[in-house]
């Protein structure tokens, strides 16, 4: 698209005092940033706060983007960090003692009409997984960021991203318990894990803390 000016150019223009350039950056990235924060925190008000903090930080730091990391990488990093801060500050008891099969909870998203029942369950279960695991799953599995970009955003080695991804997925599956849908019939493009893999018994639901199990 001809009107798609590169982020780096917009950042440069913004740093030079071009108001509209920063407005374009906000418009371009707000949805992705908001959704990252929403999945990380599970609450719209926190997601809104984290989104605003991320962009305000970007505004303050415009001059330091010159020739450094990509704007999007930086923006995602600041967003994740803002979420970590919010989660630390607002340690809410419901996040710690909920189990997926407990009584119905108020939906984490303020707009449940837009969510399927499953996505509400998934969002709730995500909050039972450790922040570090959750971050890699949201960035990679939900937002389709490659391992390498996730590593840059979180400033951890790629191997760590992969390990966290695997552990996080298993932890999330266990947190979802019975609500995790069975595997779809068609194998898709993914390789079959093993020829002996038939439909398996779902494992016993385990405690959320099991996500940190040692291997």
């Amino acid at each position, binding site marked *: 698209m001809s009107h798609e000016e590169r982020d780096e150019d917009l950042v440069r223009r913004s740093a030079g005092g071009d108001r509209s350039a920063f407005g374009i950056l906000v418009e371009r990235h707000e949805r992705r940033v908001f959704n990252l924060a929403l999945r990380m925190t599970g609450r719209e008000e926190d997601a809104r706060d984290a989104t605003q903090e991320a962009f305000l930080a970007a505004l303050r730091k415009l001059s330091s983007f010159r020739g450094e990391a990509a704007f999007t990488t930086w923006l995602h990093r600041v967003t994740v*960090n803002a979420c970590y*801060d919010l989660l630390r500050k607002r340690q809410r008891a419901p996040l710690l003692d909920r189990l997926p099969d407990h009584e119905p909870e108020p939906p984490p998203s303020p707009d449940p009409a837009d969510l*399927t029942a*499953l996505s509400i369950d998934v969002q709730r279960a995500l909050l039972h997984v450790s922040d570090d695991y959750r971050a890699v799953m949201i960035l990679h599995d939900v937002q389709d960021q490659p*391992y390498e970009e996730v590593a840059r955003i979180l400033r951890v080695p790629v191997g760590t991203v992969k390990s966290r991804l*695997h552990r996080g997925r*298993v932890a999330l599956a266990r947190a979802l318990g019975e609500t995790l849908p069975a595997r779809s019939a068609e194998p898709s493009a993914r390789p079959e*894990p093993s020829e002996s893999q038939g439909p398996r018994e779902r494992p016993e639901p385990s405690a959320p803390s099991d996500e940190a199990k040692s291997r």
Partner: protein
Amino acid sequence: MTHPEELLAGYVDGTLIESERAVVNTHLETCEACREEVELSTRVVTVLAELPDEPVRLGLTSPVIAELDRRTAHPAWWRSKLQWAAGLAAAAAAIALLAVGLPHLGGEPAAERASKGGLTATGSTVPGPTAPEVSLALVPLEVQHVDYGDVSKLQALADQSADREMNDLEAAGSPTPSYKTATAEAAMSCVAKAAGDGLTSNDTLVRLIQAKFQGKPAYLGIYLERPGPNRQPNQVVIWVASKACQLLSFASKVI
């Protein structure tokens, strides 16, 4: 049993090369725990990929735009939030680059260099290869690909310096690896050595930058000089040192 944990995510994602896949397949033949995890992961990945993208509500970023407008209308407003930052910004706005030294400056007596730059030297000299005894707060070393041999860039640097002092969300969340903290101390010592007795215990290091000066690698130390014995009122001083710790340039401005 050792589990190929780093490979399992890629196995589920289908991103492994053939040899890696073979390793995992062999492992899965004998490891029921991993087979189970791969099964669970595969199901979870499908679910996560289907999570809906929520639309943003109108006005989500209104505070950001409001702040943007405020800065556009009053570019200096935000700088007054921090007292010293205000001083630094004022200095940046009217900074007089009283001296732009050349590499040969390194051989001059430090006090003479300082007086050329409008600095008020204390007269206490600490000659020799060691850095002067000054009390400096260690700050991270920033790495920039900028050549500060250009006077206007030095001025822009002062603007950035004020920026740095604002509430830094990034730093609050996690360390910033683009800063080479391991080498910050060496860079700080180098700048201090180059500055010689132009530095005193009343000087506070506020930024430390690794960049270039006239094409050569250089360290820039930005100091805030607070009132003290035998000193002028606050001033901003930027010392530019070569990697061999020779003074390349400096700029100062009484606030």
